[in-house]
């Protein structure tokens, strides 16, 4: 009799136990996932990597010699700065200390991680896509990048902050006459030429120990200083980022590659929601978890922005297309749980806040104070919200929690 009961229990248990691994096999098949591949990298010159590392950490490239790439891309914070928007030239300290210092100029966008940026399929850079690979063409705001000697889209993206007044060039003031700070061409192509000449002159002629070390590093890397352009600096930075910063392992990739125990049951359920009824992978697609297209989830404008009246019109600042207003590049979700805060202006302080905002923006506003700008302007932003979000079928707290736990595995 006991044996009979046992048989019944086993039989019924098998019926209830949904085979989540079977479902995820279908996910992997339908989305053609392969997992993050560290070897699939963009064109680069490994001999420049060491120079790139020095340049990444060096403040010598900035107008006021107070900012480096690592100022906003901190090693300990998965190469973000942890701030809603970054603090550029004129500031001191790192992360929250830089904000509290209060002296720096606000860079009105959220700093993004550099993980995975050297992958060969990573095709669109910055929140507004000002550097893009489009039908095998490298499109950027500095004109034809290939003829300038750039090796990859990443190498172009790596030098654009150097041409930005708030990030590197510095604030122009009457008391200073600095070759970098005085660069003020409207056209980035002209900025590129002027900054290339200014930096070459600086590196060749400035005296001092750190400059000597930098010159020695250039010599060691066989990069001709006499013919130096920003493309050489970009190529070196990209080589460093590809060799040292781009590659990483995540548990979801391990799962895709066959390690079924890499994810817990709840995380697997979350993956099923992510690729199914959550519709997350409709935009956060592929192994890089982005379609590299531009969408709006109706992110509130907040206090600062790059466009007129402190707004941020997003992609339309580059495309000048009305349909692109308030749209931003789908951010890659690689290491997303380690790169808070979220959105182009960092208004979402944690992951559950930004995920819930995709589902329903109203609870976010319930406990937040409206900024004056948003109070009168948010209707315009809301009308840009992607229609795709209306198909999300996450209706239970369990689904929501599973989804959040899956995001921890990326």
């Amino acid at each position, binding site marked *: 009799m006991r044996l*009979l009961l046992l048989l*019944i229990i086993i*039989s019924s248990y098998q*019926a209830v136990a949904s085979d989540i691994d079977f479902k995820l096999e279908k996910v992997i098949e339908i989305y053609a996932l392969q997992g993050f591949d560290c070897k699939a990298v963009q064109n680069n010159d490994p001999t420049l990597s060491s120079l790139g590392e020095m340049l990444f950490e060096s403040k010598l490239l900035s107008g006021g010699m107070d900012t480096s790439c690592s100022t906003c891309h901190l090693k300990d914070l998965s190469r973000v700065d942890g701030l809603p928007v970054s603090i550029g030239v004129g500031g001191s300290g790192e992360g929250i200390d830089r904000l509290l210092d209060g002296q720096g100029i606000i860079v009105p966008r959220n700093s993004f991680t550099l993980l995975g940026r050297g992958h060969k399929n990573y095709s669109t850079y910055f929140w507004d896509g000002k550097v893009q690979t489009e039908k095998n063409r490298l499109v950027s705001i500095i004109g034809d990048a290939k003829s300038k000697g750039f090796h990859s889209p990443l190498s172009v993206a790596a030098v654009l902050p150097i041409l930005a007044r708030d990030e590197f060039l510095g604030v122009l003031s009457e008391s200073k006459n600095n070759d970098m700070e005085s660069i003020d061409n409207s056209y980035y192509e002209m900025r590129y030429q002027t900054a290339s000449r200014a930096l070459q002159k600086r590196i060749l002629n400035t005296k001092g120990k750190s400059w000597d070390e930098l010159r020695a590093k250039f010599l060691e890397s066989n990069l001709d200083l006499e013919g130096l352009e920003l493309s050489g600096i970009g190529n070196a930075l990209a080589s460093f980022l590809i060799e040292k910063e781009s590659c990483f392992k995540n548990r979801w990739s391990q799962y895709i590659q066959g390690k079924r125990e890499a994810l817990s049951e709840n995380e697997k359920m979350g993956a099923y929601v992510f690729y*199914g009824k959550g519709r997350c*992978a409709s935009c956060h697609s592929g192994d890089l978890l982005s379609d590299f297209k531009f969408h709006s989830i109706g992110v509130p404008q907040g206090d600062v922005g790059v466009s007129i009246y402190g707004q941020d019109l997003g992609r339309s600042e580059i495309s000048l297309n009305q349909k692109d207003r308030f749209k931003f590049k789908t951010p890659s979700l690689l290491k997303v749980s380690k790169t808070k805060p979220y959105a182009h202006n960092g208004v979402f302080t944690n992951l559950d806040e930004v995920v819930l905002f995709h589902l329903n923006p109203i609870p976010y506003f319930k406990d937040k104070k409206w900024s004056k700008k948003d109070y009168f302007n948010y209707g315009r932003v809301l009308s840009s919200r992607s229609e*795709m979000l209306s*198909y999300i079928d996450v209706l239970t707290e369990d689904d929501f929690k599973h989804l959040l736990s899956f995001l921890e595995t990326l």
Partner: protein
Amino acid sequence: MKLLNIIFKISIILLVLTYLSKEILIPEFSYYNNKEDYMKLTLACGFAMDSNWYIEQGANSELQKSSEIQLLDCHDYDKLRKHMLADGVSEYRLSNLGLIALEINQKPAEQLALPHKFRER
């Protein structure tokens, strides 16, 4: 003769036990053990099919992929339904569970009217 008598009695007992298990015990156990999951999957599958209807009307291939994944809920529903049928749960009882699942979100009007009534005056 005595041995045959014992064997006969045991056979009858086993036959009765098997009959009772197949016709009553296993179906009842399967019904009560799986009914919550069955109702959840009925709803999930209904939702997946409903969403798929609207998503298919658009031309967004990425949304269509997600919908195909969501429809795996219907695969689970079918699997559990067949398992319960094989366990001897009747079509009628399964249909009844399906109806209960769809009625979960229905509320009587009285429940909606209640907060609007005076408790005391």
